[in-house]
């Protein structure tokens, strides 16, 4: 049974990959933007400084030659009687009247001697605004990162489908795997990890199916041996019981041997049935109407119910269940048997079967304690019965995911089974 079979869903793995990969873009953008910012700023200074230096050299050279400044110069201001020993760069902010904003400028202060007087000349040039650099750096890096991510994801999507294919193939096969069937053949791939996974799974599944087969064989062989020898015990005990020679005491001993052998055989049959249900050996599931096994069982117990003068009421509706026909018989049989067995003289049994549930209510004896415990294997009833009958009911319900409820109120026992 693989009711919860997982549909292979290639996007799940990839989505997860994308999600975590995407988070890594954030540090890339932050660090990348900072880095670009400083580089751009450094280059901008370099360029402006170089330009100012050229301009200074042109002015100094011109002054040396003509003892005058050229007509065309970019001097911002000339300060008299101040001398700088060597040229000095300065950063400054100047209000730009146009957009009423402080704008960064680079200035070069240097001195020349003109006719014995010192003059300090100031050259200046517009710098790139820091916010402009920051914005630019951020945009460039973000754009780049997004582009890289986009193409990476695109290629990853393409490649992943191909690379993970053997993995999904394996997943598909093992979810469909049934213990009673041969171990599936996994397709080999050129990826070591998948091959390792497949061969490990193969070993595991082989071991499991082998254990399963051994267990099954052991059960059958043990059962065969046990029942054969029990048949010998019973046959001989029966012969003694029929012989007219025995005295009462001896007959009593033989009777005990005979009845113990009979009970042992029955318990063993029930246990074998339990383990077969547990091993999922009944897998011949068909769509059947539960009314049918129920009707058969009621026919079987009709006379027994009459003898006890039990009042039987039942109402049934067609109830379609998907299960093994043999197990449906066993289920109906054990439930009705339980209701008859644990009933009282002149009691009642009320059976209600609807499209999705079966409810069996019967008179009985009061029971202290949790009634659900009666569904467990080997829980002892008041007569010392090992409650295998109900344990089998529970096992069948578990196998088909039917929900089972056991309630006792004022000596009225009620078992409800919800199909589906």
């Amino acid at each position, binding site marked *: 049974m693989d009711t919860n079979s997982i549909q292979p869903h290639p996007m799940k793995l990839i989505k997860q990959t994308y999600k975590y990969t995407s988070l890594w873009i954030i540090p890339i953008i932050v660090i990348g933007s900072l880095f670009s910012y400083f580089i751009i700023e450094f280059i901008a200074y370099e360029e402006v400084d170089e330009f100012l230096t050229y301009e200074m050299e042109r002015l100094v050279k011109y002054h040396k030659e003509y003892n005058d400044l050229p007509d065309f110069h970019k001097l911002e201001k000339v300060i008299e009687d101040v001398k700088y020993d060597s040229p000095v760069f300065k950063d400054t902010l100047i209000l730009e009247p146009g957009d009423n904003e402080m704008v960064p400028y680079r200035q070069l202060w240097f001195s020349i001697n003109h006719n014995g007087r010192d003059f300090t000349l100031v050259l200046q040039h517009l710098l790139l605004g820091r916010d402009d650099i920051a914005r630019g750096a951020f945009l460039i890096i973000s754009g780049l990162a997004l582009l890289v991510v986009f193409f990476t994801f695109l290629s990853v999507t393409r490649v992943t489908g191909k690379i993970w294919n053997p993995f999904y193939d394996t997943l598909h096969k093992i979810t469909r795997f049934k213990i009673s069937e041969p171990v599936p053949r996994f397709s080999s791939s050129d990826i070591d990890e998948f091959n390792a996974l497949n061969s490990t799974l193969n070993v595991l599944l082989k071991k499991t199916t082998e254990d399963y087969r051994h267990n099954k064989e052991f059960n059958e062989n043990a059962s065969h041996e046990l029942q*054969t020898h029990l048949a010998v015990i019973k046959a001989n005990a029966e012969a003694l019981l029929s012989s007219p020679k025995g005295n*009462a005491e001896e007959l009593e001993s033989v009777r005990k041997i005979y009845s113990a052998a009979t009970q042992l055989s029955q318990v063993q049959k029930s246990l074998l049935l339990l383990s077969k249900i547990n091993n999922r050996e009944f897998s011949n599931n068909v769509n059947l109407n539960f009314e049918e096994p129920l009707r058969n069982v009621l026919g079987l117990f009709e006379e027994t119910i009459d003898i006890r003068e039990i009042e039987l009421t039942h109402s049934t509706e067609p109830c379609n269940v998907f299960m093994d026909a043999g197990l449906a018989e066993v289920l109906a049989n054990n439930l009705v048997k339980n209701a008859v067995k644990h009933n009282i003289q002149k009691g009642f049994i009320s059976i209600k079967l609807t499209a999705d549930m079966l409810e069996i209510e019967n008179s009985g004896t009061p029971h202290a304690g949790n009634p659900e415990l009666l569904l467990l294997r080997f829980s002892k009833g008041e007569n010392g019965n090992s409650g295998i009958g109900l344990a089998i009911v529970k096992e069948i319900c578990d196998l088909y995911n039917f929900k089972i409820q056991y309630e006792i109120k004022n000596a009225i026992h009620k078992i409800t089974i919800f199909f589906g």
Partner: protein
Amino acid sequence: MKLLIIEDNLKLLEAITQTLQTEKYLCETATDFSAAHEKIFLYQYDILIVDINLPDGSGLDLIREAKKQNPSTGIIVISARNSLSNKIEGLELGADDYITKPFDMAELVARIKALLRRRNFSGTDIISFNNISINTASRQVFANGRHIELTKSEYDILLFFFSNPNRVLTRESIAEHIWGDNMDLADSFDFIYSHIKNLRKKLAAAVKNVPIKAVYGIGYKLDTTPPHETD
């Protein structure tokens, strides 16, 4: 009536053979596949009792072989594997009946007799003891010529007794005979008791001495020794 019993457990084979010999059947035995195969090939049998699990082969193959050799042979399968598939396969191959170990000898005898009646080897459908007769074809019971109305279980129990005269039938074997595996035997003794009480009551209305006797603590027995006329 010639029977071949194929069973690999010698002790069980012996028990079966002894029981069936007291029923005056001519019994031959085989303890493995090859011996059984040879006998089926050489001789004719009315009934084959086949254990499915043999050390050197499957009883199912023997059924196939026997049906080929002599299609009128009656076949009863005995198996310890209480598995439905074996049962279905056995019956599909042409076995007439299927009985799981451990079975009561009374049950085996009843099955053999029922099979013989179905095959009409005995020539008659009427079994009678002490003025009580059962018509197995119409499932009717007459006592001193009067028709007795019985329930299904009562009829089954009476026929079971008639198939095993003078043999003690344990309560367990009677319970298994009517309900098979469907009832826990220990719980069914009350019901057996009631059934037999009702059966005796109905018969007693027509015959003076009901031959079904209780065997204290064990079960019941059909006593066919003629009743002493004490008047």
